[in-house]
């Protein structure tokens, strides 16, 4: 089906999320929407899906104008959407999930056979390899995503919108998804592929539309250079590589040995995790989300009381210490979810900067917060870390993601450190902020302390790390050099030992 968006404008108050966007998707085309977080990609797709009503512009399907009052209309017109976060009911089977909302009935009774047959038919046609009777929660993430696609196809979707579909996948699963996308396109289904990952765009797209600040800034071919696409996305030249010298090792060290954490139902969240980081080097922890990385950093920080094993920082045991004691030992920590664990959104920038030093010098005297000391520190931090804010009293929750992360970095790097840990340091950040954060991490390494980076973005780990440890199911599959090929790392992320 051919889809045309003409002059779509969507405003929220005075904020223009989509500004006269024109977009044409030809039948059987894989059309990539490329843009940074907040550029307006999702808004545009929500307009298309009937979740938002555009103030101006029109939607045409096969050259006929249509109006969608809600997602039901859009689905009826043949538009299917696979959200970044799956809209599946975990305890239902695949067939039950697929038929949910338009259950086939026979004489008023649910007809599971029809649903099963439909799933099997679609699964076979595109080689999805999905069992209609499998419970969704027991399927791997990649398969769950295929269930979402089957769900859309079962409603005769002829245009599929995939919203950041690869965020939760391993490199292998990503490759499989790309294959599926190609087959769907070959059978005539149009695909809108939303992403900010340049590699994927170049691999699979037929055409690329770049959106920046609500406007279409360019259309490009998949043959375009990554740097060119990146600069279109950001609006200026960007350096995609991390500049760093060979590590200059120091005598300090961070040593984790036999770290084990058993979960509530007896499963091993961390299973005999051991590694060493030398002063002056970055150890990157790679792996698909949910393989123990979160637990690892939490255990180091003292948030996991049941962890066993040993965590030595310059010979000092950290395991069993409180978070306070671990921080006081000189550990700087950037949590993976900055909104939940890194910042108090309703606190000002200044208050957030003293969050982990709310006792004693330099910010507290005689039990009273020294407003002048914290103000001076905050002014300096805003300057040094280039935090774009109205002032030190602005609520941290009102900053953009990049600036929020800079506040966290400023706080954590503002102390005398002996170890720096950053978890998903650039998740959800714009390209400009990513550059800045990466430079800061390398600067911390070059100051001679051990640095531990946890990231699910393989490119990030490859760019930053001097050595890479891959985690799978709570175990370290292997520790390899920083220049290990992606394919090898991808296999390790799926559990294959190097």
């Amino acid at each position, binding site marked *: 089906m051919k889809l045309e968006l003409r002059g779509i404008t969507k405003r*929220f*108050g005075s*904020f223009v*999320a989509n500004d006269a966007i024109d977009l044409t998707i030809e039948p059987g085309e894989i059309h990539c929407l490329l843009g940074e977080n*907040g550029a307006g990609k999702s808004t545009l797709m929500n307009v298309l899906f009937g979740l938002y009503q555009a103030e101006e512009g029109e939607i045409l399907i096969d050259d006929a104008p249509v109006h969608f009052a809600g997602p039901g209309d859009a689905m009826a017109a043949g538009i299917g959407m696979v959200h*970044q*976060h799956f809209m599946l009911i975990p305890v239902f089977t695949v067939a039950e999930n697929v038929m949910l909302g338009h259950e086939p009935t026979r004489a008023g009774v649910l007809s599971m056979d029809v649903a099963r047959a439909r799933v099997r038919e679609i699964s076979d046609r595109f080689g999805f390899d999905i069992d209609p009777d499998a419970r969704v929660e027991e399927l791997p993430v990649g398969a769950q995503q295929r269930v979402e696609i089957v769900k859309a196809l079962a409603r005769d979707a002829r245009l599929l919108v995939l919203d950041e579909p690869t*965020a*939760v996948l391993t490199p292998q699963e990503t490759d499989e998804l790309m294959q599926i996308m190609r087959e769907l396109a070959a059978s005539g289904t149009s695909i809108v592929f939303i992403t900010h990952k340049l590699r994927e765009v170049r691999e699979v797209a037929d055409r690329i539309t770049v959106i920046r600040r609500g406007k279409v800034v360019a259309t490009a071919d998949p043959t375009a250079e990554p740097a060119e696409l990146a600069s279109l996305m950001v609006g200026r030249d960007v350096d995609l590589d991390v500049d760093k010298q060979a590590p200059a090792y120091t005598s300090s060290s961070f040593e984790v040995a036999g770290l084990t954490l058993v979960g*509530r139902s007896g499963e091993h969240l961390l299973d005999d995790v051991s590694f060493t980081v030398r002063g002056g080097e970055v150890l990157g922890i790679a792996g698909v*989300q*949910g393989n123990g990385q*979160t637990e690892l950093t939490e255990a180091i*920080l003292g*948030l996991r*009381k*049941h962890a066993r094993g040993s965590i030595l920082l310059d010979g000092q045991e950290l395991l069993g210490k*409180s*978070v*306070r004691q*671990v*921080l*006081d030992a000189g550990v700087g*920590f950037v*949590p*993976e*979810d900055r*909104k*939940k*664990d*890194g*910042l*108090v*959104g*309703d*606190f000002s920038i200044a*208050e957030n900067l*003293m*969050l*982990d030093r*709310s*006792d004693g010098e330099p*910010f*507290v005297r005689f*039990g*009273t*917060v020294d407003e002048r000391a914290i103000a001076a520190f905050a002014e300096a931090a805003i300057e040094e870390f280039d935090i774009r804010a109205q002032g030190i009293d602005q609520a941290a*929750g*009102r900053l953009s*993601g990049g600036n929020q992360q800079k506040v966290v970095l400023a706080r954590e790097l503002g102390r005398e450190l002996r170890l720096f840990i950053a978890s998903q340091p650039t*998740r*959800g950040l714009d390209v400009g902020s990513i550059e800045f954060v990466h430079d800061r991490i390398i600067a911390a390494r070059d100051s001679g302390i051990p640095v531990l980076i946890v990231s699910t973005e393989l490119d990030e780990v490859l760019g930053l790390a001097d050595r890479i440890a891959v985690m799978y199911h709570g175990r370290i599959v292997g520790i390899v050099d920083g220049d290990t090929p992606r394919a090898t790392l991808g296999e390790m992320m799926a559990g294959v030992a190097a």
Partner: protein
Amino acid sequence: MSESTPTPTRRPRAAQASRVDSVLRDALREILAGSIVRGALAILIAFLVGAILIVCTNDDVISAAGYFFARPMDTLSAAAGAVGEAYGALFRGAIYNTEADSFVAGIRSLTETARFAGPLIAAGLGVALSFRVGMFNIGGQGQLLVAAGCAMWAATQWQLPGGLHLLVAIVFGLIGGSVWGAVVGFLKAQTGAHEVIVTIMLNYVAVNVLTWVLRTSPLHNPGSGNDPTSMAPAASAQLPAILGPSFQLHLGFVLAIAAAVLFWWLMERSSLGFKFRAVGLNPDAARTAGINVERIFVYTMAASGAFVALAGVNQALGRTAGFTPSIDAGIGWDAITVALLGGSRAGGVVFAGLLFGAFKAASSTMQFVGVAPEVMSVVQGVIVLFIAAPPLVRAIFRLPAPGAGVRAVLARTRTAETQEVAK
């Protein structure tokens, strides 16, 4: 509070409680973020509702309504008269009695308002403190009663010189209420028990223990027969009148204002208050930043209980006779209203305490012109309803805030997304 290993059974319960917690915390945050305008509107609407009730229950209006279609103006003027008279009585009873023959007699109304406001402010501060840390201290009644009992013990059992005796009695009361509150924080920190349930249950415990104590020597006043009534506090332990013998206003009001100043410093300036607020707004980030959240729960309830205890001390020592277990006079509950209306800020709580103190002070004058005391209770209730209900309903049903900018909405979805991914 120890850092020792918690029992493995603790997590599931804590997790359940934390879901309830997060809903309540969302609601609290929104309520506390409410503006002065919202408070003023709530008061205005409540007075209008009160006016309707006054009209509906007024005898003159009812009889005039009997011939409404013949002479509608009669009904309307009777209604206007009833409302005017009632709110006039409120003014005379709470601020200045225009019918009094001397200034001293006239201004007595205002001092009565202050006298009633004292314990409301103190207890309101206590509840407000718990709100700021994202906790619901519904146990004001219990903490107040325990404090009154402890203060009375010191006031009746010992013979000490004037100022010292009063000081000792006050400190005793504060310690009692504080410990009673800290128990709740301790249970929450150790077992994840929700403070709402625990505080409510401890209210019953406090009432019944106090009743038993007041029936038993040495606190029991034998002159009252079998009634649970205490001895009178020794004169040396009574809160002294501050405006001379012609007014009943005593030191308790000054202590309440001093408590408000202390509250302001604690919450807005001190490092402990910084931690309180951090835990209240985002306990996860507080924990990650090395703040011992469980310990803060205990401190919070201890401090909250201490402020509420000042109200209990005020009730026990601000009198010349003994008391019964009804000494709390509903202050523990009114304190919730005061804290909500006051936005849990020191200044707001003082204002709200004075307003509700005015209602109490004017109760008898209003009754004299035929307004049932329940009407003012309804007015209080309506104020809370308009301040607290919309955010509470929104939080429970996860509705978006009206007029929230796109940034806020986007930010919220994004947070939800990252949490989703984290799962």
